[in-house]
């Protein structure tokens, strides 16, 4: 076994950021202490996840597992577990948080408050990806909201208050329904077996009357669909992403959206296999609608950030389509695409932030000529844009092709339709590139090209884009077993020592 196994390493992943966040607040008098604390904390968390990834990605089953009694009155336990899927998601989270800290290095006002919120978000997200007790999961699910609300509301752009409140209300609407559903499920399970427990491993064995199952699944589904977001409930996303500060957009698009998909995979499908399978065509229709509708709207945007925000909806449409296809290839593609989207969209949001700092505008019509004005920045922008539209050899292509291949084997029509979406993506992304990079230079004050800190952010992202595009199996290996188990309908690998 590896030397870390004696440590409560999953708890560390969750509580280290919280400790760092409190540190930022309490060391306010020390100038610039907060940014270094934030960088240090996210760095350590990333190192931990990377270490787990290197040592644990080839193993099967639960890599790590923690279980303690918590609130015995309701049978709520503090249960954390990490399998390949959680591992990949925590790795992505830890990585993008470093990116978020670095691009916010000069943030003002209230940097200490800002960095402590970033770390608090990391705490919540890690908790979401690691919890195996439904109440614990719900707790982290809501804890993510508050710091993000503050990030948007305090450091956001012009319409930040509207966007922040909308974000909070939309997400809460979904999750409150989920709360009722999970209590119902718990009571049902308790009445059937006498074992009152919120543990996922216990609740998946509940026999749910079909009618009720649809209601419960629906409640969970709405909560996750708002987060993903699927088309009719996506309207919070463009506002939140556009108004959020750059780091907020990176975290929102890069990670928070994935918690919705993760929730479906981890909780929605295993808990309610019947309705979940029956709803796959609906899922596909919503996904396809998202792909086309978002692409269409994205094309009409003048604000670069808003355009990228809508492209997120389209990309997440692909992810959901992969889920709906329900086979190994497509599901692997979906999970890979989540990572891909996190990397490229994170990079694009960061770059729009950098451009905004120089040009003080994000409007495509008022930008232009960046290719000659700031060549290095322009080159990176082109690179990430091409990655986002799915150029072969770069990361999004591998994810999309896996999804499309997988979908084609079972539902050729869906795949054929979705292929059109890829073309649409090319159209709006090329319009963005054309507007921002080519054309005459607007204004004539000289701009500084990429700074060292900015390069430090973008180069690792660029390497990952290539890595994921050329050798995706590094990241596919760990998720294969969880995906196979999900397809077989048995969520839980056996674990030495057994589940509680």
């Amino acid at each position, binding site marked *: 076994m590896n030397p870390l196994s004696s440590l409560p390493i999953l708890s560390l992943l969750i509580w280290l950021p919280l400790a760092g966040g409190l540190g930022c607040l309490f060391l306010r008098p020390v100038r610039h202490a907060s940014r270094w604390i934030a960088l240090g904390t996210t760095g350590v968390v990333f190192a931990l996840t990377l270490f787990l990834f290197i040592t644990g990605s080839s193993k099967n089953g639960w890599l790590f597992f923690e279980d303690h009694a918590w609130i015995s009155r309701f049978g709520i336990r503090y249960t954390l577990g990490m399998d390949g899927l959680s591992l990949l998601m925590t790795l992505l989270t830890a990585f993008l948080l470093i990116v978020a800290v670095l691009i916010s290095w000069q943030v003002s006002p209230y940097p200490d408050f800002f960095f402590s919120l970033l770390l608090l978000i990391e705490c919540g997200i890690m908790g979401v990806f690691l919890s195996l007790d439904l109440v614990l999961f719900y707790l982290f699910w809501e804890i993510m909201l508050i710091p993000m609300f503050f990030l948007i509301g305090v450091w956001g752009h012009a319409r930040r*208050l509207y966007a922040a*409140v909308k974000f909070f209300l939309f997400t809460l609407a979904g999750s409150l329904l989920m709360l009722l559903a999970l*209590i119902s499920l718990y009571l049902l399970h308790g009445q059937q077996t006498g074992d009152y427990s919120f543990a996922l491993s216990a609740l998946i064995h509940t026999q749910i009357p079909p009618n009720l199952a649809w209601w419960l699944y629906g409640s969970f589904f709405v909560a996750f669909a708002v987060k993903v977001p699927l088309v009719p409930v996506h309207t919070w996303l463009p506002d939140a992403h556009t108004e959020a500060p750059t780091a907020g957009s990176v975290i929102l698009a890069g990670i928070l959206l994935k918690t919705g998909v993760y929730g479906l995979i981890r909780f929605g499908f295993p808990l309610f296999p019947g309705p979940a399978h029956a709803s796959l065509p609906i899922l596909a229709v919503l996904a396809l609608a998202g792909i086309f509708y978002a692409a269409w709207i994205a094309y009409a945007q003048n604000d670069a950030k808003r355009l990228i925000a809508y492209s997120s909806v389209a990309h997440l449409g692909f992810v959901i389509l992969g889920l709906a296809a329900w086979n190994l290839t497509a599901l692997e593609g979906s999970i890979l695409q989540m990572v891909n989207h996190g990397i490229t969209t994170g990079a694009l949001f960061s770059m729009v932030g950098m451009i905004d700092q120089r040009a003080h505008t994000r409007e495509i019509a008022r930008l232009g000529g960046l290719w000659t004005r700031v060549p290095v920045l322009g080159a990176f922008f082109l690179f990430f844009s091409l990655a986002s539209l799915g150029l072969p050899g770069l990361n999004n292509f591998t994810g999309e092709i896996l999804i499309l291949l997988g979908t084609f084997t079972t539902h050729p029509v869906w795949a054929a339709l979705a292929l059109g979406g890829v073309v649409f993506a090319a159209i709006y992304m090329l319009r963005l590139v054309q507007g921002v990079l080519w054309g005459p230079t607007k204004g004539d004050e000289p701009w500084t090209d990429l700074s060292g800190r900015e390069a430090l952010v973008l180069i690792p992202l660029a390497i990952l884009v290539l890595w994921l595009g050329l050798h995706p199996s590094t990241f596919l290996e760990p998720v294969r077993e969880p995906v196979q188990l999900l397809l077989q309908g048995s969520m839980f690998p056996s674990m030495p020592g057994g589940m509680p």
Partner: protein
Amino acid sequence: MTWSDLYALLPVLVLIFGSTVLLMAGAWRAAFSTMVAYGILFSLAAAATAVFHTPGSHDVAGFFLIGGYSRFFSILWPIVAALTLTISFRYGADRGFSGGEYAALILFACAGMVLLSSASSLVSLFLGLETFTLALYILIAFHKGSPLGAEAGLKYLVMGGVATGLLAFGIALIFAATGTFHISEVSILDASNGQFHAVTLFGWGMLLAGIGFKISLVPFHLWTPDVYQGAPSPVAGLLATGSKGAVFAALVFLLGNLQLSRTPLANLLWVLSAASMLIGTLCALRQNNLKRMLAYSSVVHMGYLLLALLAGGTSGHTAILFYLVAYAFVNLGAFAVVTVFSSCATEPQSYEDFKGAGYRQPLAAAALLVFVLSLAGIPPTAGFMGKFAIFYAAIETGYTGLALIGILSSLVSLYYYLRPVIIMYMSGDSNTPSFSMMASEKSVLILCLIATLILGVYPGPLFDVITGILP
């Protein structure tokens, strides 16, 4: 009355003794802070007495049932009174309150709350209720120079008078129909058809209407915002937590052994609960005044509590007791923040007064943030656990419809709870002068803050205690 009866009532006697002493001493020594400090000592002494005082289950003259249940509240309400007094040091001194009367009245009100929570007869229920209401009539209008305070006092007096009338009439009717005041006997149903006798039912309706006034259920809530707004903030805090909580403690006892769902009362309570949740929420949405918002929010919370009461059983009653404790700390904390922000002359009430407070008064603003999030039921705060327990009880007993209404109102209520947060943190700064808090004020805020967070993340021990003492 025997010695053992007196012994059983020891915590109440400590409170009443303290109250009397302070009232007498106030005639000679008028320093506000000294009197308040002694008041705190007496209430803490009462709480400590209750902690170490285990007379076992004891029935005092058929009036009060002393046992685990009453002991729980004999600890809680004196703590609430002590916190109320602690927060008043600067506030009361600034306004020239006379210390003897102020502290004495709060102790007296607290004694009434403890008595009400241990009432086992309709007469002692009436007695306890009137004891603290009487003290509150004066406390609400305690600031002589404030016209709003006088208005609030008068409103509470008139409404309280009506409520008392209804209550007395209801009790009389119930007595006429059943021939007893004892709570365990009045709630027995008519043997012939398993229903209430018409007169009994009428009596219960009157009784509930009277109680509805006291805990401000819709449609008996109209006095609440005005009284909260006009009352001195610490007193408003006591009014919101202690007085309403004590009535609920009595209600649990009153309706606890009644098969509620088999009586027509269940329908009545259903409507009251739904109306309180919905109308309270809608009214709170339109407020621009923190104290008025808290008033309507208390209406909504009483609706939630009523839902738990309706659900009944162990889980319902556990939920109510947990919620009362959580709500006490959260609401006292919120009113403490208003108190802290008060200057010599005015209380900041309009949201605008809190502009930029998040950066000028980090501790007080962060405290208010946690308290409103707790009221909104967002984890990891006590409010979430309380709401969780209530919805749990509701679903368990099949009140899914009411639970859905509760969810809906929680969702909408988030909007008005976020407004003060937005003003404090996201609306830029204002040029109001900053101030420094007294140590006593700081300690109250920190205590309430810690209690809110601990009950939110580690509520297990309190749940265990509550399960052990339920009647």
